[in-house]
């Protein structure tokens, strides 16, 4: 350690820094190499015999202030210690050069002086990560857990170091950025999303206001081992290698993905090194993830959950997957598996499909796809799509499926989150992948010339791979292996990746077969793209009508009838939008199709609730079919199912009746919310540990986010979404029932019911869009207020007229009640009627 700069003793932070409790600050002298060095630390419970200590380690340029929210939220009995490294924060300015190895030694000496001998969870950010891991590896017996936020232990071989670090490290720039000015600190905050408020930035700058206090920021930047010969290189490599010793240590990776320094690349590096780690990734958050996202809340929930029984994904069925059983069943070998309705209407038997899947699976292995890899599939329903999907499963890869109805921006977010290693798609999808920089090595569906492939950046095409005659032994994955990550369109917020294992999908297949008594004598027309996979899964003949799959509502009755005739279908699965079109185009049906249509026994409508009148009207198309509407969600489908006669029998009530829970599905109502448990429910949300944790209460169940109740006959009724619940004094109230009643009033086109005021004492507000729209938002007239109150069981404090209710763009019918509630809340607090 060479003396290089000014020295100055440790001191206490100035008072008045936002969020910092002055009573936490301590100065701790520590003997280091015969010299006394004084650390400034934040310590929430110095005198308490803590059950657990959370040791918080900041990076560069930062100080213990970074952890103020974590410290504040720690539960009783847990001691929080956030340190300022020497030369950083308010600790001693030693005038020495402290490298990674020195800092690990410093931290070890500090905890020894403090006498921290009990269990410890470390939490660290940025270059605090390797320091905390260095400490952890020397304290394995007392290490209870590790939390890492936007950090790294290794520069991935195939990626350059972050441009911003290289730029700062360039000669001349470094001193100007780190010591001469506060550019490195303020620059770091330019990377936060949303922008960190001024008073918080002031807190971060507090120990670095004077030039001589900033020397260590440069030293820290210089200590990043970018070069092979860097003195800290071996120490960092040692820390990385040491992760092998930590395979039993609970680990949580918290990541802001908009970090130009520690991007997702480093997250994935950690995931490979610590496969058992829990991960929560925030797409919107930047480098200072704890400023941009609720890191403290998630970290504390995780720490409190350390002793809880953790779901063991490897428990249960380790037998090989049964997902391909129907396809490989020799008895079905001659049965038509799939018929395509476009072009020459090719078809394929189960026997041929099974061979094609095997050949493709070998081809995929041959081109470097490994079991456990994620593969995004972007191919429209048909033989190629089914072959590719099952080939991935056959060889043990997991598929990433993204709803075609997502916007390009949402698709990009989904693919960046799931991070598939490979992407197999039609040319259009590959072109989008190039333009939007989707992750994954690209493989073209079908056949493609080398020139074309180069254009879309595809290394291989499927037809060539399938016929390459690659000799790879194929081994079926286990039932507990990951099978799929599915992104469906959420009406609010970014789409979440829902994870399924093979056994979950197999359970879903068996449930559907039981529910609708499906046998090999059945055949299926899937007029809704997500259903296309069920025919092959169930081992029945299936087809997809010749329509634009991204616009399921565009189907007409004749096109559907063509498909029904082509395979003598007994079942039709369609979306409500398609049913609507079917009914209106019914008179155009070619008489020759009428016989085939009369053989359909089940009409399944899924995707959104359907009016009984619409289902009744489908009788003109399918005279002998019973219409069913399943209820469920991407995370668990189906939960319940109701037939048209049952729906009519249920009549009107509090919400929408969705039928009795299916055998094998448990339903409970917790605080008004529908909570389910079933063999076929999702494993979890991908890279969203906290979201999964919150959605899995009680443990092993899935919180649907829907509000509802079970009636005396055991039927389930759905009454809106949890976030739209009105938490009144009398208990939670769903909005749907009152909305339906208000919409029945003369002159009302659409109504929204929202709650305002504090949870537990919220009041009901009704917002109306009239048949004759009003010009601007206003309080409704007394007569309308009286009429609304006359149909409400609970007091309605105010009724507003608006020109147009805000609706969700994609569904065009889902009212954005959250926005309305905020709007009404502000007005009724005494504000004005703002814009909607």
């Amino acid at each position: 350690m060479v003396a290089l700069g000014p020295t100055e003793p440790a001191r206490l932070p100035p008072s008045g820094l936002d969020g910092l409790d002055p009573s936490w600050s301590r100065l701790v002298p520590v003997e280091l190499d015969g010299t006394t060095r004084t650390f400034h630390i934040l310590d929430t419970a110095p005198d308490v015999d803590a059950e657990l200590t959370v040791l918080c380690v900041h990076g560069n340029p930062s100080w213990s202030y970074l952890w103020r929210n974590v410290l504040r939220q720690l539960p009783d009995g847990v001691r929080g210690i956030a340190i300022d490294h020497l030369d950083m924060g308010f600790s001693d300015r030693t005038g020495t050069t402290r490298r990674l190895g020195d800092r690990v030694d410093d931290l070890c000496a500090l905890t020894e002086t403090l006498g921290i001998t009990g269990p410890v969870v470390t939490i660290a950010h940025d270059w605090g990560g390797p320091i905390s891991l260095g400490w952890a590896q020397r304290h394995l017996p007392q290490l209870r857990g590790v939390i890492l936020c936007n950090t790294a232990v290794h520069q991935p071989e195939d990626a350059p170091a972050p441009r911003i670090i290289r730029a700062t490290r360039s000669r001349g720039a470094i001193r100007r950025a780190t010591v001469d000015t506060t550019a490195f600190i303020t620059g770091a905050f330019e990377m936060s999303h949303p922008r960190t408020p001024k008073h918080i930035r002031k807190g971060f700058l507090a120990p670095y206001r004077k030039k001589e206090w900033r020397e260590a920021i440069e030293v820290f930047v210089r200590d990043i081992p970018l070069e092979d010969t860097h003195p800290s290189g071996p120490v960092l490599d040692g820390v990385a290698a040491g992760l092998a010793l930590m395979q039993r240590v609970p680990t949580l990776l918290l990541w802001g993905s908009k970090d130009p320094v520690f991007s997702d690349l480093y997250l994935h590096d950690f995931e490979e090194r610590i496969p058992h780690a829990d991960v929560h990734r925030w797409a919107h958050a930047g480098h200072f993830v704890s400023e941009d996202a609720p890191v403290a809340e998630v970290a504390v929930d995780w720490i409190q959950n350390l002793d809880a029984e953790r779901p063991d994904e490897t428990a249960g069925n380790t037998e090989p997957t049964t997902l391909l059983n129907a396809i490989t069943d020799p008895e079905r070998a001659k049965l038509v598996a799939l018929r395509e309705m476009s072009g020459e209407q090719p078809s394929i038997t189960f026997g041929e499909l099974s061979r094609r899947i095997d050949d493709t699976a070998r081809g995929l292995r041959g081109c470097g796809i490994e079991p456990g890899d994620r593969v995004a599939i972007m191919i429209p329903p048909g033989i190629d799509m089914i072959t590719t999907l099952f080939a991935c499963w056959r060889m043990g890869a997991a598929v990433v499926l993204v709803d075609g109805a997502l916007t390009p921006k949402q698709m990009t977010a989904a693919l960046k989150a799931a991070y598939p290693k490979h992407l197999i798609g039609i040319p259009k999808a590959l072109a989008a992948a190039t333009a939007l920089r989707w992750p994954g090595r690209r493989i073209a569906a079908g056949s493609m010339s080398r020139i074309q492939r180069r254009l879309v950046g595809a290394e291989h095409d499927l037809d060539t791979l399938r016929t390459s005659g690659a000799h790879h032994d194929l081994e079926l994955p286990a039932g507990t292996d990951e099978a799929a990550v599915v992104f469906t369109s959420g009406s609010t917020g970014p789409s979440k990746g829902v994870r399924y294992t093979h056994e979950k999908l197999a359970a879903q297949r068996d449930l559907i077969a039981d529910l609708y008594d499906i046998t090999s004598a059945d055949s299926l027309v899937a007029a809704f793209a997500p259903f296309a996979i069920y025919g092959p899964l169930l081992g029945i003949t299936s087809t997809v009508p010749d329509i634009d799959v991204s616009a399921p509502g565009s189907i007409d009755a004749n096109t559907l009838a063509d498909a029904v005739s082509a395979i003598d279908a007994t079942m039709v699965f369609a979306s409500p939008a398609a049913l609507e079109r079917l009914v209106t185009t019914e008179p155009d049906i070619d008489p020759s199709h009428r016989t085939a249509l009369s053989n359909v026994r089940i009409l399944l409508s899924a995707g959104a609730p359907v009016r009984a009148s619409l289902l009744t009207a489908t009788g003109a198309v399918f005279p002998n079919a019973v219409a069913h509407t399943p209820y469920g969600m991407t995370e668990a489908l189906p939960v319940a199912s109701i037939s048209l006669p049952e729906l009519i029998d249920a009549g009107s009530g509090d919400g929408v009746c969705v039928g009795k829970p299916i055998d094998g599905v448990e339903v409970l109502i917790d605080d008004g919310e529908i909570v389910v448990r079933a063999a076929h429910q999702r494993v979890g949300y991908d890279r969203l540990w906290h979201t999964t944790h919150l959605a899995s209460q009680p443990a092993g169940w899935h919180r649907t986010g829907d509000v509802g109740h079970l009636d005396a006959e055991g039927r389930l009724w759905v009454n809106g979404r949890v976030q739209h619940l009105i938490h009144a004094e009398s208990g939670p109230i769903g909005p749907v029932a009152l909305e339906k009643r208000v919409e029945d009033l003369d002159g009302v086109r659409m109504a929204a019911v929202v709650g305002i005021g504090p949870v537990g004492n919220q009041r009901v507000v009704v917002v109306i869009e009239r048949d004759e729209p009003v010009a601007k938002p206003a309080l409704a007239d007394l007569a309308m207020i009286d009429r609304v109150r006359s149909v409400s069981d609970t007091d309605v404090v105010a009724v507003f007229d608006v020109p147009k209710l805000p609706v969700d763009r994609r569904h065009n019918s889902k009212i954005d009640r959250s926005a309305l509630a905020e709007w009404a809340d502000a007005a009724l607090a005494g504000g004005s009627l703002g814009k909607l």
Partner: protein
Amino acid sequence: MKVLVTGATSMIGRLVVERLVARGDVVTVLQRSTADLGVREINGSVTDHEIVASAVAEQDGVIHLAAKVDIVGDWDDFVSINVEGTTTLLAAARDAGVSRFVYVSSPSVAHGGESLIGAGAEPADPDSTSGHYATSKAMAEQLALAASSEYMPVVAIRPHLVIGVGDTQLVERVVDRATQGRLPLIGSGLALVDTTWADNAADALVAALDKAPELGGEALVVSNGEPRTVHELFARLTAAAGVDWSPRSVPRAVAIAGGSVVEQVWDRTSREDEPPMTAFSAEQLSTAHWFDQSRTREALDWQPVVSLAEGFERLAAHYESQP
């Protein structure tokens, strides 16, 4: 039970006496002028020790309604009637062996001008109140609750914006101003405000008398639990009175500033009547004031019997029967 009711000439006072008499309580009333309620009557001020002593003699309970409720006036008068009157009565009641005491307070004792949204009954705080009335009532409530004891439990009941047939405080003012064409909405007029139909407030006071032994030292806000926008309240009141009213809006900041200026001028000129608007009422009518009623309803085992809708109907019938 033998009960003394002070301030019985007020709208609520009369309703309370009616209820007590109807259930067979022996009622004495104390107020400055004759009340003519068909019960034992003592006329005089609550600040007069001798009169107060004779009024509380042999009583089991006291419901203390008497107060100076004006929007403007001399601070000394507020202190004398609201603070000293209350302490005089408390001391006399304790000395006379009264076993329960209900102090009628106001939600304004616990806050200044901020919005109250689903609020509970916070402790009275004379430092945060605005206006002489609220400040003096806050001081008196603190003293009253401090005087609560095992022998004489004291409960403070704070009805919020009482309205009813024959109400001179709110209903008449609103209707008069609307008639004169000077009833503007402050700001958007969308602030949600709790009100209490007078009959329900009277029921709550009687319930408080009965429950006092369990509730000594507690303050409870009472309202109908049906907050309404100021706009709707004005529209309902003027409609009931048969007065044409169309809302005209005055910006909130202007109204509050204007109100304070007017108050000061009124003070200086020692006018006895009421100013057209005070800073206090401007604030009251432009910020939300509604309350969490769960504790009150549980503690008093009481529910409002007259809904606001029914109240407005009664009010309309009353105005129709007027010549």
